[in-house]
């Protein structure tokens, strides 16, 4: 696609701006910022990826994966989840997710160990982990607030913080997995997943594209569960002190 053709797509942005100002939505500035940012970010990543793919060096590949994990962690940490020491817990979770899924995908030779595959799969897996982690932490926070008395009942009976948190963790893990499971159920009916669409447009055989997509879908299901379980296991002790007292600040 030529740059000229690409610039024609700006017409869509123009339509959005006209609609926003016509309906007095006041979103014109945000639309312009969004368009500019996405253009710059995607162009940069395009050049970076094409450089890394041609260099074909594991060093660049690893740096790139670390950047992905760093950006995703930053996205989770900057939301005010009010959990002390959340940063390292999030990084450990995402690193574990990445390590486990790569071990599996590369170990079973489902994908070849080249930057082209490793980086794209890592992006999708870590990105989905990030969404799950945010869902999980929001839900955990809400449940601890509304079910504080139940936690106190278990603690007052001499139960451990782990025993007191078990039902809440279970609830939060479930809640964080449901959107992933739901979207998996409708996949192919409602939306065609982005990666598959891209491959098909790029000229790949649709059957082949579907196979790759299924690999992604299955690994996302597994990482959804793993993310919440690992993060839950790491995060809940931060809500308690040495005397098994709940000290969560709203």
């Amino acid at each position: 696609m030529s740059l000229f053709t690409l610039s024609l797509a700006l017409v869509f942005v123009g339509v959005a701006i006209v609609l926003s100002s016509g309906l007095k939505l006041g979103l014109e500035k945000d639309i312009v910022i969004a368009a500019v940012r996405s253009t710059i970010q995607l162009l940069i990543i395009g050049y970076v990826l094409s450089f890394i793919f041609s260099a074909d060096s594991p060093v660049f590949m690893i740096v790139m994966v670390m950047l992905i994990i760093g950006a995703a962690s930053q996205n989770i940490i900057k939301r005010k989840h009010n959990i002390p020491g959340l940063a390292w817990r999030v990084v450990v979770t995402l690193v574990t997710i990445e390590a486990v899924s790569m071990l599996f995908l590369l170990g079973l030779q489902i994908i070849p160990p080249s930057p082209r595959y490793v980086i794209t799969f890592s992006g999708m897996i870590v990105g989905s982990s990030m969404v799950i982690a945010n869902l999980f932490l929001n839900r955990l926070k809400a449940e601890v607030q509304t079910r504080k008395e139940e936690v106190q009942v278990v603690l007052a009976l001499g139960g451990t913080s782990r025993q007191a948190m078990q039902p809440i963790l279970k609830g939060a893990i479930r809640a964080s997995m449901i959107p992933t499971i739901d979207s998996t159920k409708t996949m192919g009916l409602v939306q065609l997943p982005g990666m598959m669409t891209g491959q098909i447009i790029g000229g790949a055989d649709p059957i082949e594209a579907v196979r790759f997509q299924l690999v992604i879908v299955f690994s996302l299901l597994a990482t959804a569960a793993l993310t919440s379980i690992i993060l839950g296991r790491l995060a809940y002790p931060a809500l308690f002190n040495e005397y098994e007292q709940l000290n969560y600040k709203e």
Partner: protein
Amino acid sequence: MSKFYENGEGKETVLQQITAKVPAGSIVTLVGPSGSGKSTILSLCNLLITPDGGRVIVEGKEVRDWNVHELRRHVGLAFQMGTMLLGTVKDNLLLAARLHQLETEATERIMQYVGLSEGMLARQADELSGGQKQRVALARTLVNRPSILLLDEVTSALDPAAARGIEELIIKIHNDRQNTILWVTHDLEQAKRVGDFTWLLAEGRLVEQADTASFFSQPKEPFTRRFLKGELSEEAAR
């Protein structure tokens, strides 16, 4: 002991150098306007909160020197609302047994002891009335066989008949097991009926402590006299 809380403007003193002793096997009733720090005292006794100054001694040992789980099994706490966990009455009743892998007597016997019918065991706990919940909550605490009981306004959310029922149940428990009881109540008549000793707490200070009979018949402090006339609880409620 003392307790502070950090709030917006700095430290808020909730308890100021309270010194008091609950004699083993006795019932101490703790009264005072709301917000005076009664619940805070109870939470300090089973280390649900930590004192900021001073010490809390339970059976000769400072609470922080106890194994916290053993301390809390030994010092049972019943909350005002009788909060039930999700699940059946039986799940709630056997909670402590499950937490600590204890052998318990038959659930039917426990139910009978606290005045509930066996048939209720399979019901969802949140469907019970306030009084029934409070009975299950007490039974749930008793499974740990605590030698000390902390009661936080366990009858104040109940209608008079249910409140009286719970009060009688607690007295029965006390007579059968000789527990030491620290009983927070807003009901002065109740404090008079059940207490061996009574303490009055106001704004984080222990204003008066005496045996219950003299507390009510010959209060020493002018503040206590005003409180007993009901002048002060109104003030605090506002």
